[in-house]
């Protein structure tokens, strides 16, 4: 049985285009308004949604997502709110998954977390700080719950290790486009294309590129060689910068529409 996420990439590959994957932390800008952002993603034509589990020590995140995580935690966001947001996205008919640092999973309970994701209709979990060496329990749990464990690989990952990591990966491979933290950049690193081709040499899994993508032009550029384009900080920034929630939501919808054109090569 395949997850909705796996089915999505079969579809987008058949359509010869990339998928647009949008990220928002649960509980941001508030626990309820996060659900409106998810709806804005759907209205704009997103292909998949990542719900972030806000974490106190997000070492992979730049200032924009850090600020969102702080606000979300101040709003009292917990595991149930993350799962609720996931369910909102799933119920809107979009393949969805959770992105989280490892400790919240370990605290929740590894098997329990995997089965909770599955119970809410989630396709998987992206875990940027879980290494394959520490993954035995998690892989057993995701296998049992039939969800995708999504690993993040980097420009510095050797070919040998790419083969090892992707062999354990499910759904898609998350290729971090640059050496650094999340956040919009003026240009997408030229190393990303090379990384994607190195992944393709060792794995048939779809490859999605994240870190630094914020515009339609960048999405189009990445879509030329990747199966998915991941955007996060740009949405958070649109909401943080907007004078009101309404304007933030409409900016998000507009940006999703633009990016959706980009991933179709337009």
């Amino acid at each position, binding site marked *: 049985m395949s997850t909705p996420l796996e089915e999505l990439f079969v579809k987008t590959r058949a359509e010869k285009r990339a998928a647009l994957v949008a990220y928002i932390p649960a509980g941001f800008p508030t626990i309820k308004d996060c659900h409106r952002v998810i709806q804005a993603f759907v209205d704009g034509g997103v292909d998949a949604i990542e719900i972030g589990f806000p*974490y*106190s*020590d*997000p*070492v*992979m995140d*730049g*200032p924009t997502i*850090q600020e969102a995580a*702080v606000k979300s*935690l101040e709003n009292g966001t*917990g*595991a149930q709110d993350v799962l609720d947001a996931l369910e909102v996205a799933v119920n809107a008919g979009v393949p969805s998954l959770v992105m989280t640092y*490892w*400790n*919240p*999973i*370990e*605290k*929740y309970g590894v098997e329990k977390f995997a089965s909770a994701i599955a119970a809410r209709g989630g396709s998987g979990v992206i875990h*940027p*700080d*879980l*290494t394959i*060496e*520490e993954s035995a329990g998690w892989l057993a749990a995701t296998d049992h719950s039939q969800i995708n464990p999504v*690993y*993040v*690989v*980097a*420009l*510095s*990952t*050797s070919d040998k*290790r790419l083969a090892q*990591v992707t062999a354990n990966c499910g759904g898609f491979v998350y290729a*971090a486009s640059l*050496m*650094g*933290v999340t956040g919009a950049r003026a240009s997408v690193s030229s190393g990303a294309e090379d990384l994607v081709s190195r992944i393709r040499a060792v794995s048939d899994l779809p490859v999605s590129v994240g870190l630094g993508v914020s515009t339609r032009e960048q999405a189009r550029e990445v879509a030329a060689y990747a199966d998915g384009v991941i955007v996060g900080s740009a949405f958070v920034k649109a909401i943080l910068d907007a004078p009101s929630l309404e304007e933030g939501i409409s900016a998000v919808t507009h940006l999703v529409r633009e990016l959706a054109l980009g991933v179709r090569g337009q």
Partner: protein
Amino acid sequence: MSTLQISEIVGHFGPYGGRFVPEALIAALEELDAAHQAAAKDPEFQKELAELHRTYTGRPSILTEALRFSQYAGGARILLKREDLNHTGSHKINNVLGQALLTKRMGKKRIIAETGAGQHGVASATAAALMGLECVVYMGEEDTRRQALNVARMKLLGAQVIPVTSGSRTLKDAINEAMRDWVTNVEDTHYLLGTVAGPHPFPTMVRDFHKIIGEEAREQVLQLTGRLPDAVLACVGGGSNAIGIFHRFISDEGVRLIGLEAGGDGVETGRHAATITGGSPGVLHGTRSYVLQDENGQTVESHSISAGLDYPGVGPEHAYLHDIGRAEYRAITDKEAMEAFSILSKSEGIIPAIETAHALAGAMKVGKELGPDAILLINLSGRGDKDVQTAAEYFGIPLDGNAPAGK
């Protein structure tokens, strides 16, 4: 004793340790691990480090018997391992020189470091100056205020100090920021982590650079007293000075190893930094160990009068030594630590770091429990010069020199 064998299979200590980091850092951690292992077997490296210890740090550090302090510790013999007399004023220099040599060996030109109290930052800036490396130190904004003197010291040594304004603005956030820098600049930068925490190989490597403390002390105690001590005591924040003095004694079954954590206002108040006493197993900063965390796995802010112990995590080897019962960990409140700080200053003429005062307060308790026949070895991990302002405020001593003296 099979139960005392520390498992180090791929950087683990029982269920603790390991690597929980972005894939971007794996190559650098493997390079570092290989460099550390090669250096450990390389006589040239060992010779160079030993020479620096002798001619720069001032090793071996001496052992001082605290005859007058003894009366506050149940009459037990109190032996102080004087790491405070090292160059830069604490044990931190041992690790910093080792890692700076490794940095050069790896061909990297830039080091970054985190610091809480400033001791590790000062030591890192010192080693960078000595070896011609660029040095950037991340320090929580809150700590830059508490330890302004050390900020100036680092700048005088040529380091750049970056105040960290994210999160709780203390040591944990300085580590986050240093890791973000490292993820971005890993090609030419070494992260000179200052304690026995973080992803493998840091807990093992930093311990290896500090184990000289226990190796020297064991010989010195045997020479002075003709026997092993009954207990070895050290303060525990991340746990580097403690593991440094404990390690040589782990196989000496009769020697109790006692780590003193920062109890802040008291563990029962929730305002403390006693990670093993008051925390639970979890993952923080790339390693699995005990962590102060809430029901969602979010790190809880720690509290301690001592900036150097104000950390919600602890080294994984301590978590393991605790779980197998080889070491004991107790919490010392701010108040108990400051009392011990004052007593050592007035009874021995040694002003300890407030971090170290936690170990001294522990010695006062353990000495009373064991009585006058006992020999206690205490790691006097740092000197208190940096803490004069904090202590003066605590004891109500005016700093303008004119007003009447306090307690």
